[in-house]
């Protein structure tokens, strides 16, 4: 493996790790569930994507790269859907506690 590719892979993986750490910090520090949802489902998914890209370069195999891509796409879709589900669930179970409920479209917004 050329030095260039290897350092690119490590760069991607370190950026991925940084996103993981940011997501973890957000999960701990953010004040309410809606902002924490962003920290986990978006930041961590991006972190996993960067990490998987780095690992795909390091693995030097097309089939492994495709498998990693598939895993990442699955986590991407799962993260997006889980974020929606959890947000809707917390709105439905306790809309008053958030203080932002008046800005959120109601049940009719069921695209």
């Amino acid at each position, binding site marked *: 493996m050329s030095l260039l590719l290897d350092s690119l892979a490590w760069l991607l993986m370190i950026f991925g790790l940084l996103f993981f750490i940011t997501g973890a910090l957000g*999960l701990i520090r953010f004040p309410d569930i809606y902002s924490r949802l962003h920290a*986990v489902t978006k930041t961590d998914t991006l972190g996993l994507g960067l*990490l998987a890209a780095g690992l795909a370069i*390091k693995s030097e195999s097309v089939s492994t790269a495709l498998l990693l891509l598939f895993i990442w796409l699955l986590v991407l879709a799962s*993260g997006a859907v889980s974020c929606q589900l*959890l947000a809707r*669930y917390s709105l439905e179970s306790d809309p008053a506690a958030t203080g932002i409920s008046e800005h959120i479209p109601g049940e009719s917004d069921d695209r």
Partner: protein
Amino acid sequence: MSWLASAILFTALAGLWRITHADTTADRLLGLQLLGTTGIAFLLVMAQWLEQPVWREVALVLALLAAVITVALVQLLRGKSL
């Protein structure tokens, strides 16, 4: 490679902290979500580190089940609240 795996696992501690300090069940499921993603990342790194491709398949199964658990638990919990 092992320090990368350690660092990823270290962020899983945040998920643990969130589950123990959760106000709502959605928070707990969110902590689980983080643990699931870090678990997948850890397995992927380990597959490369130890050169054992089987861990990528375990990661795939984990990704599927992390998706399942959120869907199933949210639907179950909604049934409870009504």
